[in-house]
């Protein structure tokens, strides 16, 4: 298992790379009207309109800084790659990956948060890494409507 690491403020988060299509630089986004600031906007990804969520805003109440290391992770939420349901995740400091073999899950899995999109907590060099479940973010915040309907 390979994880893509990023930061929200000082905290480290990880996404499983299975669902990731591509990691791209931050592009200019067109805002949706009447959406909370967590929805950063949408952009044209190879002819397809892809909505983008700002994970720093969602998890840290602060929008992503416009620096080089802020990138958009394009994930495919459809079960098959043939009919993609793409979603962009705007994250800060997406510069490193982590091979899953080198880390271990924290033994006492404390479920401090009620948020269902927070997955396992991993330990690497005494630093905690929180895994995220992308599908659950959408379900929790009713962002499903941003994506094209599932056939």
């Amino acid at each position, binding site marked *: 298992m390979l994880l893509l690491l990023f930061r929200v403020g000082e905290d480290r988060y990880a996404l499983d790379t299975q669902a990731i299509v591509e990691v791209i*630089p931050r592009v200019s986004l067109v805002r949706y009207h009447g959406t909370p600031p967590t929805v950063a906007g949408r952009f044209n990804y190879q002819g397809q309109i892809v909505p983008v969520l700002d994970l720093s805003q969602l998890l840290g109440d602060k929008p992503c800084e416009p620096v*080089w290391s802020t990138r958009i992770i394009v994930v495919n939420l459809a079960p098959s790659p043939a009919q993609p349901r793409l979603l962009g995740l705007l994250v800060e*400091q997406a510069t490193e990956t982590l091979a899953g073999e080198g880390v271990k899950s924290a033994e006492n899995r404390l479920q401090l948060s009620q948020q269902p999109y927070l997955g396992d907590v991993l330990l690497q060099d005494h630093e905690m890494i929180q895994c995220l479940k992308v599908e659950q973010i959408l379900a929790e915040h009713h962002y499903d409507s941003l994506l094209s309907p599932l056939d």
Partner: protein
Amino acid sequence: MELRTVNCELQTGITSMQTTCWTEIGVRGDRTCPELQTVTHCQNCTVYSQAGRSLLERPVPKDYVQDWTTRLAQPHNREQDTRDTTVSVCLFRLGQEWLAIPANVVNQAGNPSTVHSLPHRRDRVLRGLVKVRGQLLLCVSLHELLGIALPETPPAQNISRLNGQRLLVMGPPQALWAFEVDELYGLYRCRTEQLRNAPALGSQILERFSQSILPWQHQTVSYLDSDRLLSALQQHLL
């Protein structure tokens, strides 16, 4: 997953960095850093890589964002993947003849070293044994095998990045062959539609080993068939 690397001016940023321990106690300094014992070179050290990463914490120019916005908006054509439509070859010169072999059979290239002849083998093709990185390899003369005259005088043309003689090692890992070339250009990628059928070349032996010819720098180069070449060498050994 495809990670598009950020092409920024890393070099200019490093000079403005505050922690530059690699220029003081690291490999560019007096090498007194205790970490060097374990990491050997600063480029393997986490401090160095963290400093490199921190260069990405700078504002992005507007035209860069605009460039990527338009670039990603274009439909991606998977057919344009170059992997199937190009061949990678290694170009080298024997005598006056530029030749190419598939890049995937080339194991390594190095400086020529002494060839130790084998007792009771007086063979023009099989020159003997040569030491390459602690390994004894059979050294052959492709000049002899392909019927190319050895150069008598150093050539006037110097178009390669690396001038002079090189020892090339080729073949599958269990059966490596070393041979000297008079000049090595390096690797070159060629589109498959540019390859032409081998016409009647001057040398019949060369014709036998060529699978096609490819254009390169206003000249045509014979693209050797590595299977035929390796099996010919194998037969020669017996």
